[in-house]
């Protein structure tokens, strides 16, 4: 075990996979010489050379299409899109190329690329640099979508994503890069599609991903002071969704709060709520409570931004409503 920052864990995953497999290479805006705006790819160009760690122009649409064709040609590109807010530029390549080629060509092509990006608010980055677009990518059949909450999962899931023969969208969070936790030594892999119980509890299940897991754990601490034992389920993978872990948790607690930092309307939390209704309706002792971001652009002003985004207090309040 080693204590590591989330960003360091990602770098360690990239380095290990590049050492292990010469077909793995990186591209993105300012990732090579500068090392990435969040320093995830720092020093990797010096180690692996400018052929395998490439700076690109600002053109997300072209970059994503390049990643698709490079993957079809037999290499394993890892593309960084600097902000999730720019994902809409990538969507055509994701929705009309990456996710369907394997299907329309009857399995004759594989698509082993990873698109890394980071989203989320709380940094005062304004309406163009704070969005969580989980639902936008998780909506597309043929893509896998992961969203680690811890350094250990960041490393294990990124290594698994690079080895996956299908396109994987890897969602990071700008406020997690400097969080630290223990990362297992050695070839640490985390299976895509498996949630984890981040905290055990018996009264209510809080289902979250990415930075919302951190807020859910704080909410669980608050609730514990009131004698409420909250279980926190960290999804880790948004698609394919680990329905069984969710079902088993709610079969124990009979109450659920679903949390996602994306917008509320047609958001990822709505998918969770529907899944719970479909898989364990008879276990529910109260309606599922949903916590998500207000349906407006993310404000720059701190007081306004914190009003709009979900946080521990809002999650705890939702849990109290479910248990009323």
């Amino acid at each position: 075990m080693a204590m590591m920052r989330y960003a360091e864990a990602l770098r360690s995953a990239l380095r290990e996979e590049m050492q292990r497999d010469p077909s793995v290479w990186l591209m993105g805006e300012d990732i090579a010489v500068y090392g990435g705006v969040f320093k995830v790819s720092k020093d990797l160009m010096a180690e692996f050379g400018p052929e395998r760690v490439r700076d690109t122009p600002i053109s997300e649409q072209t970059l994503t299409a390049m990643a698709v064709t490079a993957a079809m040609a037999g290499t394993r590109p890892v593309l960084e899109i600097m902000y999730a807010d720019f994902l809409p530029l990538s969507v055509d390549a994701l929705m009309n190329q990456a996710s369907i080629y394997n299907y329309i060509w009857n399995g004759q092509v594989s698509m082993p690329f990873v698109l890394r990006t980071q989203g989320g608010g709380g940094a005062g980055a304004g309406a163009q640099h704070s969005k969580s677009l989980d639902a936008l990518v998780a909506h597309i059949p043929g893509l896998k979508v992961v969203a680690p909450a811890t350094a250990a999962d960041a490393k294990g899931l990124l290594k698994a994503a690079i080895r996956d023969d299908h396109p994987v969208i890897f969602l990071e969070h700008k406020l997690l890069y400097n969080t630290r936790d223990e990362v297992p030594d050695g070839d640490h892999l985390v299976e895509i599609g498996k949630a984890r119980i981040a905290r055990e509890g018996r009264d209510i299940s809080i289902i979250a991903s990415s930075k919302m897991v951190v807020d859910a754990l704080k909410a669980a601490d608050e609730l514990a002071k009131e004698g409420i034992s909250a279980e926190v389920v960290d999804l880790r993978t948004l698609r394919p969704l680990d329905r069984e872990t969710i079902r088993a948790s709610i079969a124990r607690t009979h109450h659920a709060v679903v949390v996602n930092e994306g917008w509320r309307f047609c958001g990822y939390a709505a998918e969770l709520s529907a899944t719970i209704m479909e898989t364990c309706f008879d276990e529910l002792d109260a309606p599922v409570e949903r916590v998500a971001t207000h349906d407006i652009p993310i404000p720059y002003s701190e007081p306004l931004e914190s009003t709009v985004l979900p946080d521990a207090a809002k999650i705890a309040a939702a849990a109290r409503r479910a248990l009323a």
Partner: protein
Amino acid sequence: MSYEITLAGGAGEYMESATVVSWSAKVGDRVKADDVVVVVETAKAATEIEAGRDGVLAAILAPEGAEVGIGAVLGRIADSLAAEEPAVAAAEPAVAALEIAAPKAAMQVIDASCRISISPLARRLARQAGLDPSGIAGTGPGGRIKSRDIERALRERTDAVLPAAPAAAMPSPAVARTGSAVPLVLLHGFGANAAAWNMVRPHLDGRPVLAPELPGHGREAALDMPSLEALAEAVLGQIEASGSSDCDLVGHSLGGAVAAVLTANQSVRVRSLTLIAPAGLGPEIDGAFLSGFLSARTAESLTPWLERLAAAPSRLPRGYAQAVLRERERFGVGAAQAAIAQRLFPDGTQAIGIAADLERFAGPLKVIWGRGDRIIPPSHQGELPGHVACHRLGGTGHMPHIEAPALVAQLILQNVRSAEAS
């Protein structure tokens, strides 16, 4: 059709609750659409809520001063009061022909024209317990019935029929003679709890029932030295606390052995004894079941063992494994049950015997066994003394009270009536 006056939830999770400040109409008053009917106050401001249509204010569900959650139903508007309140309507001959079943609970009086509001879990628990939820007052938002309300109703059903300890000082002699106040005491088996009797209870003619829990089961604390006699003593304490001086005793499996030992006690007279697949009549018991049951940590590993209990696993209640695991987690009964198994059934062998107790018991005595019992062999019935009535049930395993509850209840009542007649 009635119209619900609700606290709109536009602000969603950002507003927690509101307090009802004042109603501007009484139940029965006419209201008009867009009239203010109720004022609520949130942390930020007072809000006036208007009637959504013309009609009569038929019910106030959130009185002044009540704190209500977002989306809560505060009251109802109907065309007329009569349509909304069968309690009033039923008293009038003109509508008596409707033969509305006598409304017995407050919920129905307020709300008979609407579907009851009940959580899916509470509905399932009520169905499993044979309980009609329409008479239960809900404590959730807007009067929704939650699982805790069902659990309370089941507890009250047990408590209500058993006089509290002081009441025992003044039993009605008439009642005592006819025996109708003598409770049926139901003792569950190893690893179970009082809920094991939920399927049988609706068939017991409304007789008073006491379902004590064995130490280290349900909510009962564990014993340091869980001998059969110590278990019996703990159960006796629960029966004594109910104030009963007589009882009809029913026991399943380990509870059957406890019941047999209890027949010899000096303080509560056992009138009749009905044993279902009792322990203590021979050395054989399914040791693999005991160890598998005790060591399983997940529903996946527990379910195959639980399925061994019944001849047809589909007869077992849904969510059984989860309920067992939940009880272990909540009340820590796992270790206590392992200690009981270690002491009473060491090495997969029954180290207890009840033949002598049964030999001595002079009252009506029945022993019921499922022919398909894979936990304790039905052949143990062959060891019983001649005065015992033996029933062998086809198509059932170790859980006749769950697999064939109506028949088991019928046999229990036969035994009880036989005791009353003698």
